[in-house]
């Protein structure tokens, strides 16, 4: 009887218990109405209006979880991968997690270590999504120890409202152990140690008539993180086995990627030195793909991500997966309040230097006439004198009083366009950019912000300087917490071709209510590279109206 009434109670209470599940998510919809504009070579699409939308819905109830994303391209906006079309489900999963086990069936995003061996992720702004569809199991058998296993096929495209998968199969396992959490003896020691190891393998049928291709290709390696007081160091090394592909012209060399960071920080000061070596490391679940398609791993570029539009979108750098050696130094220092340089609020000075070179490749011990198709020899961090990229930049941030604050920045960028191909120009493009930003706080809720940007591109020995010099002026007025209005003009005043000395004016206004944001803009947008985290998408020039709505729930 007692059991029966307990059962009754549970059953009757269950609707109440059920409704306690948590639903969250977000959505975005982007509408473009585009005009023909022959001066900037902007085309009007035949549909005139373009619409991208997506919505994520996530449900959790106790240890159970489920989620999905609807996507819709009617048709896709400009610059998005050109094969996305239709409306349908782009991602969905169910799962269960507690403190010991976390199982996901369906779509998932995962990163092993720094991602050199495996990283699946999404960036909706870029239209990038290489999720895995399959099974993921994460185990936490002991404190500080995390074991992962993944098995699945990758999302390659979204056609007629359905996900299209890449041809190959991806399998992987990873272990990470934070010693200080796991071993009682080390619990409060000054030295903090994290160890990790990954193994990833892909399978793709060999249907190539010319070569005998390995159908299973592995990538594996280890990593280490050490913290000692204010000092920090980390490193990861991943080796990839023979992986002939259209990227590397079907050679049978092994590949590697290595990355390290050394850091010293204290209150008011941060110093970072990083290094990276990459050789023959494009790793895709379909050996015939290129660009950003079917990538299993992630090779971060070692440089600062800039935000001012002239710096960020004209000459950005992305990793060359076939090989590069890169170094970076990053320093930030704040002069204390009350000192001569610090003034009343403190002054912050930032310095960043990054440089990338082609790796040194030799024919030591290589016989190009043998049947191995191993075509060169290289070793980690061995670099040639061929420059791919260099960026030296400084910025000073200062608050003068309750009303005025400002940032002064200077950049000196060199980019090898024969390799990176950000435009039609040949050789090394050298651009110097200065930006002055100021904010005037009128009162508690009203503020005015402006940016003055200038870009000067050096003429190479042939007298060519790509698109020449640029200037940008931006003015923004904000009324907290709800409204903003901005006007921006970019002017290509130094273009060698006088007919291309064009103005790109654009007006934007926005309304924000809590987690909802609506922006409307009208004007010209120049062609450029839109980049997030070192992954870039070329966006064509356009002229027209753009409406963007985002909401979180």
């Amino acid at each position, binding site marked *: 009887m007692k059991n029966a009434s307990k059962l009754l109670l549970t059953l009757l209470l269950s609707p109440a218990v059920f409704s306690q599940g948590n639903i969250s998510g977000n959505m975005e919809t982007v509408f473009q109405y585009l005009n023909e504009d022959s001066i900037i070579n902007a085309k009007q699409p035949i549909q005139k209006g373009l619409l991208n939308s997506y919505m994520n819905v996530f449900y959790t109830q106790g240890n159970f979880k489920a989620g999905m994303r609807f996507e819709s391209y009617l048709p896709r906006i400009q610059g998005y991968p050109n094969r996305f079309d239709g409306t349908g489900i782009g991602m969905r999963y169910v799962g269960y997690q507690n403190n010991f086990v976390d199982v996901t069936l369906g779509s998932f995003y995962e990163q092993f270590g720094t991602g050199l061996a495996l990283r699946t992720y999404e960036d909706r702004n870029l239209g990038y999504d290489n999720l895995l569809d399959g099974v993921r199991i994460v185990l936490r058998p002991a404190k500080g120890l995390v074991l992962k296993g993944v098995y699945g096929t990758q999302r390659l495209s979204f056609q007629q409202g359905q996900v299209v998968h890449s041809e190959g199969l991806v399998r992987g396992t990873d272990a990470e152990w934070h010693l200080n959490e796991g071993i009682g003896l080390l619990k409060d020691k000054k030295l903090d140690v994290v160890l990790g190891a990954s193994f990833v393998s892909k399978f793709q049928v060999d249907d190539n008539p010319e070569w005998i291709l390995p159908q299973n290709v592995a990538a594996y390696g280890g990593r280490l993180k050490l913290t000692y007081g204010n000092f920090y160091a980390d490193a990861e090394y991943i080796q990839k086995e023979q992986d002939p592909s259209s990227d590397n012209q079907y050679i049978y060399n092994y590949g590697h990627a290595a990355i390290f960071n050394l850091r010293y920080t204290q209150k008011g000061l941060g110093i970072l030195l990083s290094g990276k070596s990459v050789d023959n490391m494009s790793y895709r679940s379909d050996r015939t793909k290129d660009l950003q398609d079917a990538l299993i791993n992630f090779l971060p570029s070692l440089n600062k991500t800039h935000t001012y539009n002239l710096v960020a979108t004209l000459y950005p750098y992305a990793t060359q997966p076939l090989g590069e050696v890169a170094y970076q130094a990053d320093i930030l220092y704040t002069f204390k309040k009350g000192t001569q340089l610090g003034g009343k609020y403190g002054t912050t000075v930032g310095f960043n230097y990054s440089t990338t070179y082609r790796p040194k490749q030799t024919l030591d011990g290589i016989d190009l006439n043998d049947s191995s198709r191993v075509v060169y020899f290289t070793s980690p961090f061995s670099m040639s004198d061929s420059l791919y990229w260099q960026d030296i930049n400084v910025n000073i941030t200062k608050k003068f009083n309750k009303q005025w604050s400002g940032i002064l920045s200077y950049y000196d960028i060199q980019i090898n366009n024969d390799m990176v191909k950000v435009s039609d120009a040949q050789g090394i493009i050298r651009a110097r950019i200065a930006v002055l930003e100021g*904010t005037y706080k009128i009162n508690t809720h009203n503020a005015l912000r402006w940016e003055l940007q200038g870009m000067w591109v050096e003429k190479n020995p042939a007298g060519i300087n790509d698109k020449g010099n640029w200037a940008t002026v931006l003015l923004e007025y*904000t009324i907290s917490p709800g409204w903003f209005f901005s006007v921006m003009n970019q002017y290509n005043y130094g273009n060698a071709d006088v007919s291309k000395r064009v103005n790109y004016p654009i007006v934007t206004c926005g309304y924000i209510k809590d987690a909802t944001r609506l922006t409307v803009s009208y004007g010209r947008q120049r062609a450029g590279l839109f980049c997030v*985290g070192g992954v870039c998408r070329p966006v064509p020039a356009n002229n027209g109206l753009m409406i963007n709505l985002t909401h979180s729930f």
Partner: protein
Amino acid sequence: MKKLILLYFFGVFSLSLSAQDSATESALTQKHVPSVKLVDMKGKAVNTADLTVDGPVIISFWATWCAPCKKELNTIHELYEDWVAETGVTLVAIAIDDEKTKSQVPVYVNGKAWDYKVLMDPNWDFKRAMGVNNVPHTFLVDKNGNIVYSHNNYAPGDEEKLYQELLKLSEK
């Protein structure tokens, strides 16, 4: 026996009514912080569902490449000591920098002498779970893990609205 069952029904009915009321309200108007396992700048594991054990929390999504995010967190930095003293709040700054700029996060955080709790979300697991479209996105969470306010943007003065919401919370 029949009486007993009737009594049960009555009791359960009224219980479920009241439970449903509060449950529906919490499901419709309040979102909880989901459980995602992140690590701090040292590599120590943190479960995001446990962030509110010490009181109310401001969760602020930011990145080293996001100028308004840095402006917001630098503005709050000047007020933070007072906010903590008055309300017992903790600010948790979620860095969504991926591997390209992740190693610059501690340089910025220390270079600016922030006192915030900083967690790394390089593959956007927590960002996705919280329904964040773009940064900055700031959430105010009460000590029971309910999200009571959120704002997706930063303009000078927004910190004032956040402070008012925080005061409302600590008066409760």
